[in-house]
């Protein structure tokens, strides 16, 4: 298994004030597949991603990559294998760094050469012209910024990409472009995806399997076909499915 999460719990705070953000969540993601986490705000879906990266305190359970358990602060080797794309492209790029600087920083940290060529290749790879290289984020549209954020995540040629609501800040037409880009990059770079979204249709489009979460716990794991055929067990999943069809008079 490329990525395996077993009995994961995340607790913030202590004693009476503590919050169980994630309760006993398990799932397996085979190499080069795409797995989705769906739920509403507060369901713990983003916290699962953060726990995988060591950004949230794991109180029970384990996260392993290629059978190797992850613990403590993640090392350099980890970030070369696992990268994340965040929701808001307006907040995730340094406003005073040029695109070139944002993209070459991971290369400098990891002592990787050929920076010039790699940055240009990365831009072309995400469908941006090389002329974007010396621009600042505020000179780019939301969709272009999210392309840069994807390029940045791919600079270190990771195996696993964690996507936290990568298109929910974008217009529908731009969302389609970014989703198409992600599908293509996954195939070309043989990536494993874990994608978090509140939008059932987006996750269903992107992922072969998905886990529905509510209040920090797993509700139901199912595959794409089951969802398409409305073969769902849990009431909550059915409710989400119905809500995704719009308003019923």
């Amino acid at each position, binding site marked *: 298994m490329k990525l395996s999460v077993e009995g994961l719990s995340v607790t913030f705070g202590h004693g009476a004030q503590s919050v169980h953000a994630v309760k006993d969540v398990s799932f397996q993601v085979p190499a080069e597949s795409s797995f989705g986490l769906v739920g*509403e*705000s507060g369901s713990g879906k983003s916290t699962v991603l953060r726990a995988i990266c060591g950004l949230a305190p794991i109180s029970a359970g384990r996260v392993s990559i290629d059978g190797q358990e992850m613990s403590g602060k993640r090392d350099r080797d980890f970030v070369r294998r696992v990268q994340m794309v965040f929701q808001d492209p307006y907040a995730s790029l340094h406003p005073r760094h040029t695109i070139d600087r944002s993209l070459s920083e991971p290369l400098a940290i990891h002592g990787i050469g050929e920076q010039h060529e790699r940055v240009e290749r990365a831009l072309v790879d995400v469908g941006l012209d090389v002329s974007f290289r010396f621009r600042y984020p505020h000179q780019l549209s*939301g969709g272009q910024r999210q392309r840069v954020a994807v390029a940045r995540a791919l600079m270190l040629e990771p195996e696993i990409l964690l996507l936290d609501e990568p298109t929910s800040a974008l*217009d*529908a*037409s*731009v*969302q*389609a*472009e970014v*989703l*198409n880009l992600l*599908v293509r990059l996954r195939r070309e770079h043989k990536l494993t995806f874990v994608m978090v979204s*509140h939008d*059932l*249709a*987006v996750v*269903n*489009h*992107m992922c072969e399997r998905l886990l529905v979460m509510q209040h920090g716990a797993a509700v139901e794991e199912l595959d*794409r076909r089951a*969802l*398409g055929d409305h073969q769902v067990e849990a009431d909550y999943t059915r*409710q*989400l*499915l119905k*809500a*995704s*069809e*719009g*308003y*019923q*008079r």
Partner: protein
Amino acid sequence: MSGHLLEVEDLHVRFHTPTRLVEAVRGVSFTLGRERLGIVGESGSGKTMTGRSVLRLVRPPGEVTAKRMIFDGIDLLSLPERQMREIRGSRISMVMQDPKFSLNPVMRVGKQLTEAMRVHGGGSRASMKTRALKMLEAVQIRDPERVMRAYPHELSGGMGQRVMIAMMLVPDPDLLIADEPTSALDVTVQLEVLRIMDNLVRSRGMGLIFVSHDLELVATFCDRVLVMYAGRIVEEIEASRLAEAKHPYTQGLVDCLPKIAERRERLPTLKRDARWRDSSLADLTGEGA
């Protein structure tokens, strides 16, 4: 008098910036009866500015001009600010996107509700409180007494938005302008809030302008939809017939959404045509001339 609640003809909103002139709305015309009208478009299409101009809420350097803007026989363009203020809130209300930024964070909900009443008519303290409680019940808040005493940060997003709607409905307006009223909410909560708005609009016979980027939602919620692109209405269509839209932009917007029932490897993307900016639908589809 025509039978329309609102008539807007040739509305323009321009922003004079130091470097250039930005035309946010370019010649929008529409009429509204006691119905649910959706305005959809992507960010920057001018949908929010269209809604705001009706209430004359576009601030300088924004400049609003129109040939006509008539609400229930009243010319909104020439109305003095003082009288406009009487219409604003009491006859035309607006619900904004995010309750977090629209409610006063340091005032209890009950006080904010009764303040709205005091501005629009008033009454005794006890009668205002009873009315406020009733409003909260009308938006299906289960524990109105507690919510009255709560500060906005103590409420969830869905509750906050219901309070906003309750507040807007206090003066019993004829027209409600809702700008992305449910975009900050979870899908299941979103539908509950829409249900409440729907019932209120029906039972009170209000007109509703529903501004949204969410085409699916508008198609299922509204009666009629205006599709905006680059500051113009490019297509007007019955909501239930959105699937038969003629304009390539509308078709593109419908198509590019992922659908659970239908598996597609690639989503169709919009190929923006420069002609969409200024050509009429008839010109584009070749039905005109």
